[in-house]
């Protein structure tokens, strides 16, 4: 059936749909909108690490919500990526405790290694670098988060080493 198809309309896999059911069950049956944040998170994971307009519309339809409700929420929270991000999203905390402990040096080292600035993605689409607010690991500063994992007590050297390892795996 495939000619040159338009970008596929997003849809959850059977497995993801099962997860959606589990999420729904956490909330009273008549309070389904409570599931919106977790379902958007799931959508982001399923649909390439970010939320396109089409993904949001899909979630709205799936949950029986007006699309505007979904856009409102998706744009309010920083963890929803509204444009594509690299395979590894490196989020450097530069808030006070990390700054006191040398996060500037971490940021510099990673920028040099990846040859990009905060807010940019490497050409190969492997890494996106972001500056973020306190991630709640302040006693192990400086630190960054890459996808779901925290890397703490960093030095510029260990920071670059972590990036190298991920780059080699990719």
């Amino acid at each position, binding site marked *: 059936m495939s000619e040159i198809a338009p970008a596929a309309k997003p849809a959850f896999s059977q497995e993801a749909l099962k997860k959606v059911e589990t999420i729904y069950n956490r909330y009273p049956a008549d309070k389904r909108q409570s599931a919106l944040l*977790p379902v958007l998170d799931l959508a982001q994971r399923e649909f390439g690490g970010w939320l396109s307009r089409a993904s949001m519309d899909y979630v709205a339809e799936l949950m029986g919500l007006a699309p505007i409700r979904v856009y409102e929420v998706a744009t309010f929270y920083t963890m929803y990526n509204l444009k594509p991000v690299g395979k590894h999203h490196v989020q450097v905390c530069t808030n006070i405790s990390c700054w006191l402990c040398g996060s500037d040096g971490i940021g510099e080292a990673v920028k040099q290694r990846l040859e990009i600035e905060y807010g940019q993605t490497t050409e190969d689409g492997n890494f996106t670098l972001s500056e973020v607010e306190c991630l709640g690991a302040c006693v192990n500063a400086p630190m960054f988060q890459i996808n779901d994992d925290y890397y703490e007590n960093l030095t510029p050297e260990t920071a670059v080493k972590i990036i190298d390892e991920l780059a080699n795996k990719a």
Partner: protein
Amino acid sequence: MSEANLVLFKNIHIQGQNTLAVAQQQGAYKRMEKALGMSGEEIIQEVKSAGLRGRGGAGFPAGLKWSFIPKDDPRPKYLVCNADEGEPGTCKDRDLMRFDPHLLIEGMIIAGYAVNSKQGYIYIRGEFYREAEVLEAAVAEAYAANLLGKNILGKGVDFDLAVHRGAGAYVCGEESALLNSLEGEKGQPRLKPPFPANVGLYGCPTVINNVETLCAVPAILEKGGAWYSKLGVEKSSGTKLFSVSGHVNKPGNYEVELGIPLKSLINDYAGGVRGGWENLKGVIPGGSSTPVLIPEQCETILMSYEALAGAGSMLGAGSVIVMDKSTCIVKAIARLSKFYRHESCGQCTPCREGTGWLAQIMDRIETGQGREGDIDLLLSVCSNIQGKTICALGDAAAMPVVGAIRHFRDEFEYHVKHGRCMVD
């Protein structure tokens, strides 16, 4: 003042404490069993007599908060654990959740039973993905052992518990914003009153407590409110987790009794100030919103709610940020102003516009573009924010600026006059 790790961190270093089997070897859920044999009223009384105050920042007495939940009200009651932990400098709840999740679950079952709630939620900041996984696993184990769910341990008590991840918004730590977020909305604070005790989650009576608050509950049930109230000092009873970060030799989360001298906390627990005590420039005692203390104050100040309020600051979440003499105070505060601008939810004009101004003016002073009158302008913006907003985020943005100008005005003036820092 020597008995550390008494209550909250008692088992935190035990290998495998996150699993039910190991936690139960240490007595987990025994306190819950005891609680289920008491009346809700008795439990609330015990927590009141313990003098336990909320550890999320405001220090409101936990037992009193629980007693506000209406008794003869047909609506469901909810118990929500605030695990949003987003105040810069604060990272204590994370350790409780990742290393001793069953302690939190047990505390929640007890609290839920006390206020006649059958449904609890743990609202955890979204970035804490691994911690949420640990919690989910612990919740699943507790369900499998009938410690959660229907007819817990055959005692006729029902309590369900779910973990709900946020998605990256500091303001969702504010309790009413948290509720909106949990309802699947933007996390914007609600006007109060009505208070959550009456109109909370889904419009029903709701108790919201911090992770650390709930984790203190099992020990109170085990050893009694009277025992707990003897820990710490008057009006600030019990132990407290302090996250000590910044320029200390051994940053970390430490459990000590409330009322410990700040100097002892820094020297005896956190390994002292980098370069020695004489190298101390200032301490932010309770997280990013609490006004900075100068070394003279740090010599003698006690870490209690009252003493810190008396010194013009706050205990907050107990997040001690230590700065040595190499720190540019203007830059430190400018960084915080940037944070508050980023995190303002935008509902109230004084906060939305004010945090933007603060960040802008702080930034220009810091980068040497400061203008004459900027310092007074900062103070004027602050006074136009404080007390004029829906939630306390506005105040939280203003307080560190006002506090820093109070103690370090000369440094601000130097910046404006010379276009650079007196520190480098």
